[in-house]
């Protein structure tokens, strides 16, 4: 009897290990940020359409905010734009845009045509700040708490469900209207 039981047990154990590995494999939409729980990098970036103005991490500290990485070259960014506009209308969290490896004129045109959901848009022309944030594709959206720590990172287009489940749920009481 054990002749068959032992191989069967080994087979089931192996199948179990592989099943768990496949289910939890790091695919693009679930891969969590390496910065989770850590402060976001210091940055000082020009503000889109405001020559001479810069945005730094220190200016945003003190209340939670959301960083959305986008570019006019990114098709999925167009897909999520309406959701971002709806989110901006809720007026719960400031939406900071990071215009990644784009052109100022194209970015300004985009916001004029589609509407501007952002409180402010920082310009990362050469992609150095995006690397520091561990960005590997647009769009990516970060929830950053009042102490400038990353609490969550969503890869891919923002949806109302993700916004509610992963972002609104992380807003501390008292900040919500």
């Amino acid at each position, binding site marked *: 009897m054990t002749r068959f039981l032992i191989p069967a047990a080994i087979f089931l154990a192996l199948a179990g290990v592989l099943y768990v590995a496949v289910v939890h494999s*790091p695919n693009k939409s679930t891969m*969590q*940020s*390496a*910065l989770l729980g850590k402060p976001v990098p210091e940055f000082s970036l020009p503000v889109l359409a405001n020559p001479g103005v810069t945005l730094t991490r220190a200016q945003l500290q003190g209340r939670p905010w959301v960083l959305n990485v986008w570019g006019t070259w990114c098709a999925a960014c167009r897909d999520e734009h309406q959701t971002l506009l709806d989110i901006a209308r809720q007026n719960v969290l400031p939406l900071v845009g990071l215009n990644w490896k784009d052109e100022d004129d194209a970015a300004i045109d985009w916001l004029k045509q589609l509407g501007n959901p952002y409180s402010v848009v920082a310009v990362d022309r050469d992609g150095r700040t*995006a*690397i520091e944030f*561990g960005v*590997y594709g647009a769009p990516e959206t970060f929830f950053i708490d009042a102490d400038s720590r990353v609490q969550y990172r969503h890869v891919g287009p923002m949806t109302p469900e993700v916004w509610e489940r992963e972002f609104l749920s992380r807003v501390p009481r008292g900040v919500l209207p």
Partner: protein
Amino acid sequence: MKIPMRTRALAGLAALLLGLSLVSVAFDVESMPTPALQKRYDALTHELRCMQCQNQSIADSPVGLAEDLRRDVREQLIAGKTDAEIREAMVARYGNVILFRPPFTPSTAWVWVFPFLLLLIGVFVAARIVRKRTALMASDDSVIEPEDVTR
């Protein structure tokens, strides 16, 4: 003058191959100031994963992000960082996934240990089977008669 078909075909093939080789080097023109740095640059960029691609290193990928990461590696090397420091900086931003060779940590230990464990179990099982059969053969004093074989 009539050029033989074969020569023309060969010339065409040569031109095609030259074109392809030019394409493959077109995006990797960055060079380091010293051969020693160049060697380290080549090694590092080949062991860092291009996060936008499937199983391509940042050295092999033409996408923009890989280009930015190569620039980052180059700048850190020139700034005097060690290979370990550069790897650490990459892992701090992107996690262990960016390394093709995962480090030995509690969560990755099984990846390294499991194959050897399986091998050990296999050796143990094989040894047991061999021992059992040897014992069986030693205790078996029956004689094979010619008619047993022919039957």
